[in-house]
């Protein structure tokens, strides 16, 4: 069953067509990757999916599973980012965007807001429902921090963390919205190969543990080729290839536009 689907999405900025006729179809439970040269429109595609931009043309559909295990396709084109987050799509950012002055724990707690099922007044009056909700949220968040190895830092300011841990925190925060689909924009940027390997393992583990579908932008080819089920390749906004890692890796168009003729990733 497809979880996320785009139909002929076009995103244009003035004269620049950043995304041109994008058709992707991500199945539930898979790990898909989006690769392509710089400026190919990958981040823009994420921005369209998460509602930061409304596409010039085309549609985006999302099929979340609700509590009763029913799944119905919803047109999320042009919906606000917070609505989309509420439906179950979470993301990280290419340039880290944490709430710098808040603590690590607070950063993650903010993301539970979208699922808070108690009203404003009961929150202020600390009604039993709100109290229970808060306790639950805190427990959830601490669990997530534990998983991402940040629990000892929970009372530190986010801005005081080293870069790598900030990336982890971004992932923890995204997970706290209880997403069904997680979008990762270059999670391994700025990491050395060793750190990248660790991250690869982590992503893989999170995917199974949290029953996630993941859609990821990455330039580290070893990571991409190792863990993705499906790869989409963009160039100048157009999809120049899609398929399994093997197919894509050997596609001459991809090699020419992106990987480079002598790019031997396993070198």
């Amino acid at each position: 069953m497809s979880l996320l689907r785009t139909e002929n999405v076009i995103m244009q900025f003035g004269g620049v067509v950043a995304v041109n006729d994008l058709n992707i179809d991500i199945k539930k439970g898979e790990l898909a990757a989006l690769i392509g040269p710089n400026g190919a429109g990958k981040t823009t595609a994420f921005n369209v999916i998460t509602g930061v931009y409304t596409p010039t043309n085309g549609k985006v559909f999302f099929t979340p599973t609700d509590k009763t295990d029913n799944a119905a396709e919803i047109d999320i084109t042009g919906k606000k980012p917070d609505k989309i987050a509420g439906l179950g799509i979470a993301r990280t950012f290419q340039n880290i965007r944490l709430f710098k002055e808040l603590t690590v724990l607070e950063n993650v707690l903010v993301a539970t807001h979208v699922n808070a099922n108690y009203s404003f007044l009961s929150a202020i009056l600390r009604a039993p429902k709100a109290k229970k909700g808060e306790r639950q949220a805190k427990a959830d968040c601490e669990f997530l921090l534990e998983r991402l190895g940040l629990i000892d830092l929970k009372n530190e300011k986010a801005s005081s963390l080293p870069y790598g841990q900030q990336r982890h925190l971004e992932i923890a925060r995204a997970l706290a919205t209880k997403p069904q689909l997680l979008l990762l924009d270059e999670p391994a940027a700025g990491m050395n190969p060793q750190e990248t390997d660790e991250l690869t393992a982590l992503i893989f583990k999170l995917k199974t543990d949290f029953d996630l579908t993941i859609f990821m932008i990455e330039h580290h080819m070893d990571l991409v080729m190792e863990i993705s089920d499906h790869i989409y390749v963009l160039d100048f906004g157009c999809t120049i290839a899609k398929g399994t890692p093997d197919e894509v890796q050997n596609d001459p168009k991809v090699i020419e536009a992106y990987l480079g003729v002598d790019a031997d990733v396993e070198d």
Partner: protein
Amino acid sequence: MKETQNNIGAYLKLHWKTAVFLVVLLIGIGLADNFVDSYVRRLLNLCAIYVIVSLAMNLVNGFTGQFSLGQAGFMAIGAYTVAVFTVPIESRAAIFYLEPMVPFLANIELPFIVALILGGLASAVAAFFIGSPCLRLRGDYLAIATLGFSEIIRIIFTNTQSITNGALGIKSIPTISSLWWTYGIAIIIIIATILLINSTYGRAFKSIREDEIAAEAMGVALFKTKMTSFLIGAFFTGIGGGLFAALLGTVDPKQFYFILTYNFLLIIVLGGMGSISGTIIASFVVTLGQEALRFLDEPMAFGLDLPIFRPGLRMVVFSFLLMVIVLFYRKGLMGTNELTWDFIAEKYRVIKKKLSKKKTSTEGGGN
């Protein structure tokens, strides 16, 4: 039943210091209410009103990160609502002697508390109209738009003579002088703000302050959340304005010149943007300080006949202090910290340590 008792018991155990503090505070207010003279009482009342308005301003500016300068306007709305609805009907003809009050208002007189809440609501409604276009904008535009809004309110109140009595203002507003009104409401508002800030809604406010795009991506509805904060701020400010009217017993548009907003700005900057306890402390410091600095305006201050002591010096000193705080104590008294028991204990430890260090070093020097 038993469980609730247990709950209360556990709660008290955890917060006994706070409980004791509250009891002491209430007794203090009660004593003050009975024993201070009307000058001190007036100042104390003013402090409480400043606490309310500054807290509201800090909620929007400090916690939600929306730079709003509309306090004077929101206060004006609250103040005028109280004025229009509580002035005794029989004195209205004498007050509106140039142009009579419009008939549909002329015969409505409401109890103070009803008018006060109405004032808060009216100011929240105004906030909705100003916020709808402006909260979508970048920060500094909001500042100028809200400043403009408060000027518009003042100009409207100046010109709608048959409702507000225009430039003549409204007098004979039944006054409150008991400290319980202002302090009662201030305490309620402080507690409500603390509870709000520490709830998931409060965290949503702060996340917007930190990074709007990330907040939205994490599911915080930007506009709705900003609006919530803005409306609550306006509501509290309106209440503050209503109390202000009832404290002075008279209102006129000139009182709500946008310079008034600067007082509150000074308070939240001094107290620390994003600190509730800082705001409360600073409200007292600024209100009482302004009064205490009065001697600067009088010739012969300190018994010296220096020509520098003449009217106007106080405001110079006052604005100079604002600059000093902004430039050298940017975080204000409290930064974004709160004056919690832990905080006090921590400070106490630090000071003690410093003192003992000094002691040993002086001792060392003596040897």
